[in-house]
């Protein structure tokens, strides 16, 4: 199966929020009472019921102001920290490349919300006793696995969100970066080609990633060490101890009986 990806070209985004609405409509997410934060961001943050939203930045370019927009949602990292720390497999990688989610398996631990370098997953808390379910953009896994275009890409009328094989998206992204550079965006770049094993959500950026609150070089941090090493260490340490004790018991039982007799 070909690895699929989305290419988000921020230079074509008009912040119309059609993707935001399409995401809510397809995934059956209710609207929320929102707040005015003194800017166009609405709602101001992702939530269990908002998996995709347009964020706004005003980039000071000296003589003029550049108004930048970016849809914020799950980046679908190939080596996803959330998948590494998810104890139940609720978050897992689909062969099509995206980070799939099976809500019925989620036990509500919330690790994914704390290990994601992009701060994407949100936990739908039920109570303080630990009941809850994680939420995030699923790449419209029900659509994608059935050969349909994800709802946001389907709704985007400016072509800012494209969907296709990752190889095609990389080619299109590189071409677009060249075009933008020739049009005066000297710092235009393709974001996500190699980050965390390669992102499934690629961005054509007109400015450095930091201008869009994207980390230059994010890593899984402790998550990378946690799952494979700690789990192995646990098995080896506890197993070796148990083995040593069995050995001790076998020897002590005989030798100490012999001494008593």
């Amino acid at each position, binding site marked *: 199966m070909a690895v699929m990806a989305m290419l988000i070209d921020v230079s074509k985004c008009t912040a119309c929020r059609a993707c935001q609405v399409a995401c809510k409509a397809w995934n059956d997410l209710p609207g929320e009472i929102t707040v005015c934060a003194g800017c166009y961001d609405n709602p101001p943050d992702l939530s269990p019921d908002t998996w995709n939203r347009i964020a706004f930045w005003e980039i000071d370019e000296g003589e003029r102001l550049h108004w930048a927009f970016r849809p914020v949602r799950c980046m679908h990292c190939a080596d996803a920290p959330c998948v590494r*720390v998810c104890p139940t497999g609720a978050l897992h990688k689909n062969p099509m490349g995206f980070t799939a989610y099976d809500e019925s398996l989620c036990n509500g631990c919330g690790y994914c919300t704390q290990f994601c370098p992009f701060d994407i997953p949100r936990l739908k808390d039920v109570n*303080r006793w630990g009941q809850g379910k994680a939420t995030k953009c699923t790449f419209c896994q029900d659509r994608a696995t059935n050969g349909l275009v994800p709802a946001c890409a389907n709704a985007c009328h400016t072509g800012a969100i494209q969907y296709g094989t990752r190889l095609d998206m990389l080619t299109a992204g590189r071409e677009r970066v060249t075009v933008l550079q020739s049009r005066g965006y000297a710092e235009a770049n393709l974001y996500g080609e190699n980050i965390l094993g390669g992102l499934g959500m690629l961005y054509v950026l007109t400015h450095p990633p930091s201008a869009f609150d994207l980390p230059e070089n994010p890593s899984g941090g402790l998550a990378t060490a946690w799952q494979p090493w700690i*789990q192995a260490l*646990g098995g080896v340490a506890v197993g070796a*101890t148990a083995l040593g004790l069995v050995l001790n018991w076998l020897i002590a039982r005989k030798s*100490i009986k012999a001494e008593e007799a």
Partner: protein
Amino acid sequence: MAEKRKELYVFSVGQRFAHWLHTAAFVVLMITGAMLYIPWFSQSIARGDGGNMVRLVHRIGAIAFILVPILYVVLDLKGFLADMKRILTWSKEDLGWAKAAPAYYFMGDDKAMPPQDKFNTGQKLFYLVVAVCMILFIVTGLVMWFGRGVVPVWMFQWSVFLHDLSTIAYAAFFLVHFMLSVVHPLMKGALNGMIFGWMPEEYVKHHHAKYYQKLQSGKE
């Protein structure tokens, strides 16, 4: 009363209560924790609503676990402080214990074993591991329970990491403790002491000679 003279009272009601409440809480926490930590369990039993239930039981166990040191202090402050003093007192004799331990615990050869206090070196080490792990468990556990989204991300991540490391250290030491207090042929008196408070005088004399001397001279 002739029978009583052969037995020594070594563990108070408060000490025994703290020990067994801790044990009960620990068993519950270890089982529910393993269900989240070991992939085979977490991906078969501890998923979905099962996982939510496991995490609920883990938190109930955590409350009992946190109550233990508090109740120990309330029920027997003197005993608690004496314990703390004992586990923080280390000397050359502890090195002697370490040298003599293999021959002793495998072959029953006690010729090289220096006289031990109320807790021998191994018991002191286990008590210390329990105390350190307990602090780590409680602090990191509370961070994970109440701190998600409140504390910085690095603090949450380190809490998960340290909670896991404590579990590994504790699980390994617990196996040794269980072996030496319940199974090992030389240690038949220890379990009785922790259940009923009384230990055979002969056992104390043999296994904790230094403590026995103190008891005889009225220092304890």
